[in-house]
């Protein structure tokens, strides 16, 4: 099993900024580097194998991150392992700092998979090594990783990733993630079970309910991707719960229940400053999907080489068509 590549300038900055997405949202997580035969992608995922809690996936096109990319494994060119994201992020940051301090245009950061003998141990262990080589010096950082995942686990990961790509039929765009996060933080004072309803008219409706109080918030006329419909006439005067119920009964909306804690966690990614966020309910109410996109710097075009998404598990099947 071999892996070796140089990080491009863009790549290292990208990983540095975007890994913030994970280091805030998970204490211990698994990052899986994976080269897919057809398109050479790097996936960093959290919770995809454990099936518990929020699943997060960051997908990068390898050419954005790496040059001189070499990978070989007995697993159809796929390598997956677990790593602590905080350690990974720290190594990236120091490599960046060292590179900047070297003031050396040729200073490059190379990462590779190695086996080394850790201090005080007699068995070699796998590491992801960051080597920052300049003209006069080289700095090496070893990030401990798990043993590369066995074939079965990698296969399971592959299937989970493919399932995760089952896009919801209707997605609504939320413009102000900070505002949504502030709302979610306040709703947590009421309770933890959140009902999320999304309609084809572009409504996003969040509601927390206990036996004594119901608090909810509705955002209307959001931009819709996918299946859309015109709202029925005269629905402006109706209350939010009534409107949502009507949409669901007509088959033009879906509703699921998720944990407010999970939603709050997934929202912490706004630290990575995504340019857009889309919310949708997967077919049959399987999960609540959040997709984050980034623009190519200086444009409003989506950068297709990077994508992040989270899937929030559904706690109780909500009503749906």
């Amino acid at each position, binding site marked *: 099993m071999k892996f070796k590549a140089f990080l491009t300038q863009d790549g290292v900055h990208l990983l540095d900024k975007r890994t913030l997405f994970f280091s805030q949202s998970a204490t211990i997580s698994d990052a899986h580097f994976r080269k897919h035969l057809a398109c050479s992608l790097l996936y960093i995922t959290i919770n995809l194998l454990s099936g518990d809690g929020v699943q997060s996936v960051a997908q990068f096109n390898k050419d954005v991150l790496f040059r001189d990319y070499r990978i070989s494994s007995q697993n159809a060119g796929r390598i997956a392992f677990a790593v602590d994201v905080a350690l990974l992020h720290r190594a990236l940051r120091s490599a960046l700092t060292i590179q900047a301090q070297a003031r050396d245009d040729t200073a490059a950061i190379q990462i590779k998979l190695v086996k080394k003998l850790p201090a005080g141990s007699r068995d070699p262990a796998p590491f992801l090594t960051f080597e920052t080589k300049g003209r006069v010096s080289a700095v090496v950082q070893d990030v401990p990783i798990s043993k590369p995942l066995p074939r079965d686990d990698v296969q399971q990961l592959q299937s989970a990733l493919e399932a995760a790509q089952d896009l919801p039929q209707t997605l609504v765009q939320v413009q102000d993630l900070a505002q949504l996060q502030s709302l979610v933080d306040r709703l947590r*004072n009421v309770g933890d079970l959140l009902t999320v309803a999304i309609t084809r008219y572009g409504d996003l409706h969040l509601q927390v309910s206990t036996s*004594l*109080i119901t*608090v909810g918030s509705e*955002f209307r006329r959001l931009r819709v991707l996918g299946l859309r419909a015109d709202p029925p006439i005269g629905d*402006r005067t109706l209350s*939010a719960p009534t409107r949502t119920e009507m949409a669901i009964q007509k088959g033009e909306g879906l509703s699921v229940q998720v944990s407010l804690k999970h939603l709050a966690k997934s929202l912490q990614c706004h630290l990575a400053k995504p340019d857009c966020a889309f919310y949708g309910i997967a077919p049959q109410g399987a999960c609540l999907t959040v997709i984050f996109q980034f623009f190519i710097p200086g444009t409003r075009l989506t950068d297709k080489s990077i994508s992040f998404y989270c899937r929030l598990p559904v706690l109780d099947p909500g009503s749906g068509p």
Partner: protein
Amino acid sequence: MSSSAGVGGDAPDLVCQLDCAQGMVDALSSVRWKRHQDAVVEISEHGVVLIVEESGCLQAKVYLKRELFLAYEYTAEGRPRFGLSLGLFVDCLNTFSTPGHAPVIEIRYPGPDMQLLLKTVDSPDACIYAEIRTRIPDTISWDCNFQSTGNVHATFTEAVDDLEWPGSSIQIVLQPDPPSVILRGEGHGDLQVEFPYYANTDLLIAFQCDQHVSYRYKYKFLRATTSHIPNSVLKDNRGSKVTIGRGGMLKIQHLISVKRAGGQHSHGDISGGIQQLSRIAYIEFFVKPEEDESPVNDT
């Protein structure tokens, strides 16, 4: 403002709008001395009164006059009353406001299920709403017929803070000659805080007393009357009015400024008079005195 019909075609008893949610939260928090408290709310054409009490010895009322609201449509007959969790109501109002943004909130009563309905109405494309369950209230056990025997206008809060001996009682003495208020606490030792009338008019602003009056009150109840006034309000506070009524009933009144969003800060126009009055919430506390100890019998 539209008052759309509820279920059954009856208009709700009250539909009102306010834009000073934070001020409302300040006013209501000043009578929240426990995390969970049941309140009784009474609505009328004059405004809203919220009443809380504890163990028959402490009662607080918050008067929110209709002038505090942006709009106030009252169509009920008589004065409907309902029970509500104070904590839930305050927490709910807090959910609506964010720092720097004071939304316009519409409050309606009753909803189809006798709930209290709240909703932000300042944006057509986004809103926050809430429904709070209400209950049939217990009758209020004491409605004091208050006759005053002496009253003072004072910065009461610091005195009560200084006398902190939980578990003990505080004796309040009003005496006409020399005119002064004395608060005395006993515990491990004793402490006396004296406000002579002529000494410092910052502390004791007004004083009226015909006879020597002295009663004891439980410390924890006195504490409840002052310790939950939000700090931001204390700075604006004009001082509290303390009155002892017949039988020793202690009445403490606070005026809490409920600033309107975009309105002037009250410092600027204390002399604003009528304009200013409409932005005040009145808070009243009533504390029953401790029973006199019966004389020791030697049997």
